[in-house]
């Protein structure tokens, strides 16, 4: 797949966000720029909270917590988000009402069939400083990236993700409580294999297109540098071998108190030239790989959903040098995604020069309020 081959796609546009009692935002209305919204201000003012509100409104989930009560403004019991969104063909209103133990989601007043069904409608890609570690640390963020894309491709995969995790936890509980024998163990291992094989298969199919795309983007970002090579090989090759591995590792997993077999062990191997990037890459090289992977996620999400996702950049410029920040903006501008970013230094955010009136909106966030320039 060629980068930018699908530039005729329309872009998701958020035209208005209302938030009530979300984190430190008592009541805000955000009218974003058509292309860029720059949220600036001192630390701890609520800039990231605004991005989080957009993410929760679009996907029902936060990128920084899985605990709903954290999202409620201290002393309140309900947070309300309303987003006005246009995907190029229709305008819709998405409502997310968060209680301490529940969330109510609505699209044009109608209840979606599930959380996954809601999240499919308005795709969002988030960059935050932690993302820049994606090529260095443990495999979890790399797996999560693949799974996010796989879910956009096939939302029913959620069943395999949750099922695999629960079956693994159940197996471990059986091992610790009752030892390495028993029909129940066989049964939960059969379920691990059933859900795990589905995950391997889904990740494999995503990688076949996504990895070459990320490699191509990397070649554009790092002109004369060693080529990036990404490789995914599912941990288990067949259901029978998978079953055998689980059975073989019962005693060991019991002692360790964790599962050493399954889809949670998957990874994407990253090479620069012939060498493993994890051990040999420089800081700068890792940042470029992370950029390539995230830009590929934006592009690939657009392909899968037939609409360009919203892009949320949280404090990214503080971690990227000037040259890479410029590259990032150049790519995002060409992609025409609507971008929301936070920074403590608005003057460092250089957007393309050919922007039209209303394309860029700069807002200061101060103590949970949005202030327009001069107000």
């Amino acid at each position, binding site marked *: 797949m060629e980068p930018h081959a699908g530039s005729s796609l329309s872009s998701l546009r958020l035209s208005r966000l209302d938030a009530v009692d979300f984190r430190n935002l008592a009541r805000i209305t955000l009218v974003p720029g058509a292309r860029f919204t720059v949220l600036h201000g001192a630390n701890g003012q609520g800039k990231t909270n605004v991005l989080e509100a957009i993410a929760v409104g679009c996907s029902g989930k936060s990128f920084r917590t899985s605990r709903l009560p954290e999202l409620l403004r201290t002393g309140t019991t309900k947070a309300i988000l309303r987003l006005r969104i246009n995907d190029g063909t229709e305008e819709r209103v998405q409502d997310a009402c968060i209680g301490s133990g529940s969330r109510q989601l609505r699209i044009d007043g109608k209840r979606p069939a599930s959380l996954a*069904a809601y999240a499919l409608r308005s795709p969002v890609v988030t960059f935050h400083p932690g993302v820049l570690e994606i090529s260095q640390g443990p495999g979890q963020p790399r797996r999560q990236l693949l799974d996010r894309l796989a879910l956009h491709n096939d939302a*029913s995969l959620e069943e395999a993700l949750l099922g695999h995790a629960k079956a693994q936890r159940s197996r471990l509980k059986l091992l610790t409580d009752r030892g390495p024998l028993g029909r129940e163990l066989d049964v939960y291992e059969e379920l691990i294999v059933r859900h795990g094989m589905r995950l391997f298969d889904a990740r494999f199919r995503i990688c076949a297109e996504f990895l070459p795309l990320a490699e191509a983007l990397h070649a554009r970002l790092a002109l004369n540098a060693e080529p990036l090579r990404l490789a995914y090989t599912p941990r288990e090759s067949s259901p029978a071998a998978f079953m055998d591995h689980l059975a073989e590792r019962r005693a060991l997993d019991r002692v360790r108190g964790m599962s050493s077999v399954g889809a949670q062990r998957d990874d994407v191997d990253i090479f620069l030239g012939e060498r493993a990037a994890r051990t040999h890459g420089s800081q700068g090289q890792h940042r470029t790989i992370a950029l390539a992977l995230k830009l590929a996620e934006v592009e690939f999400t657009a392909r899968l959903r037939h609409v360009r996702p919203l892009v949320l950049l949280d404090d990214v410029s503080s971690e990227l040098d000037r040259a890479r920040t410029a590259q990032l903006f150049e790519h995002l501008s060409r992609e025409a995604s609507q971008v929301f970013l936070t920074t403590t230094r608005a003057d460092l955010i250089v957007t393309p020069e050919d922007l039209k009136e209303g394309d860029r909106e700069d807002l200061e966030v101060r103590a949970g309020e949005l202030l327009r320039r001069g107000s």
Partner: protein
Amino acid sequence: MRIASLERLQRLLTKLPGVGEKTALRYILKVLERDASLARDLGAELSALPDRIGACVRCGHLAEKTGGDLQLCAICNDTRRDPTILCVVARVPDVLAFERAGSFRGRYHVLGCLLSPLDGIGPHELGIDRILARARDEGIREVVVATPPTVDGEATALLLKREFEASGVAVTRIASGVPHGGDLEFTDPITLGRALAGRRAL
């Protein structure tokens, strides 16, 4: 002013599913408004309930007690039912759902729970031995597993399959898919995915 007996009843009512404090209070005020016989009849029926209805000793479905002794339920007693086919469900409401539909002509077995290592529920709590004994004693030829399509529901189904493996009893699983008359548009992705995975040749 607080009325202690009213609050006591209110607290009891809120133990019921879907009844919060406000709803409980509404119920109480309604009963007070009506003729006193409503309150007395309700009370009498409720207090007699545990003596009148219990779990069927064979299948676990609701059964009427006579003379305080546990009896077989109406389904186990119904001789027109096909004795060779047994439908295994998790809960009593599942039996009621099948019975409302009326399409199943065999008998039931209510597990009361699902396999769940995380909650400490194993084959013993499920009463697997009781089902095996029933199959033997009643000449059952097919066991239809109608547990929910969750991880624990599937695990329960797989366990039953394994337990019956050498017995000559066929173990089948109900299909899962799109509700009749349901718009595909409003069906959740997981259900749609299952319906697709379980597709059949025409």
